[in-house]
């Protein structure tokens, strides 16, 4: 068995192409509606934040005061501070696109960006006619 074959390049480009196609499709389906951020504490929705531009504030949820969220002027939200050991949640960075999420698993907190429309899963349904 060889370490590398020329046909491997084909396999790699197919994988990357699939990735790019999914990304483009996603960008087409979820265009820029003003998104909202949902904060879950152990799978329970505890707070919804509207990602408006122009406000700059820091806040935390009552269940876990050691975790501080930051909503910046551009309408992006991120984990600012956390007492977890790995800091994966902070390194995830700023979120502003529908479907992005950041999780702080040690604290059981998930920050998730969803579309403003209530039924997020029903975007494909055409009403009328």
């Amino acid at each position, binding site marked *: *068995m*060889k*370490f*590398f*074959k020329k046909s*491997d390049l084909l*396999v*790699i480009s197919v*994988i*990357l192409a*699939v*990735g*790019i196609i*999914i*990304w483009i*499709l*996603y960008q087409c389906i979820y265009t820029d509606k003003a998104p909202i951020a949902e904060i*879950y504490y152990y*799978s329970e929705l505890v707070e919804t934040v509207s990602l408006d531009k122009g406000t700059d504030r820091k806040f935390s949820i009552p269940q876990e005061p050691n975790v501080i969220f930051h909503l910046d002027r551009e309408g992006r939200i991120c984990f600012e501070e956390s007492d977890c050991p*790995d*800091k*994966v*949640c902070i*390194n*995830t*960075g*700023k*979120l502003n*696109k*529908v*479907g*992005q*999420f*950041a*999780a702080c*698993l*040690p604290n059981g907190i*998930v920050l*998730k960006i969803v579309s403003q429309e209530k039924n*997020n*899963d029903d975007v494909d349904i055409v009403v009328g006619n």
Partner: protein
Amino acid sequence: MQNIKNLNKTQLMVLTGLIFASALVLSLIESMLPPLPIPVPGVKFGLSNIAVMYCLFFLGEKQAYIIAILKATFVFITRGLIAGALSLSGGILSITVMFLLLLLLKERISYLVISIFGAVFHNIGQFIVIILIYVGMNMWVYLPVLLLSGVVAGIVTSTLLRFILPALKRLV
């Protein structure tokens, strides 16, 4: 697969234990590296996959599964239930996919591609668990990133394995 011949039960057990230990050391080293500046949770090289791949290629799939289960147990003890479940599902799915590729394509596939598929499916396995735990998660945004990071991780781990292989061969 060029299985190492003439190992008795004890030798195989000792060797599996040594490889498991090196998998733990590799993941420890990886956790000490500075985090990659990528805005997606959980993207990493998965250096311990080097040990798992060596096991799968040269000792057989049973030993590779044992290492994945032991590693998940270790993660469960040190980092909790969710981290353990993530490790277990990623490890098992990745080994299963790599094993099936080896079984179906035999000599026609290269180590590089197997390694890439292993890394991609490790990511996918972890994401399946995240989706199950946190309902309503939208995976499609992250799938492109997971595919890309899987390709990079696969190239890195298989290249490293290639250079470490002579040293590992001296182990036996």
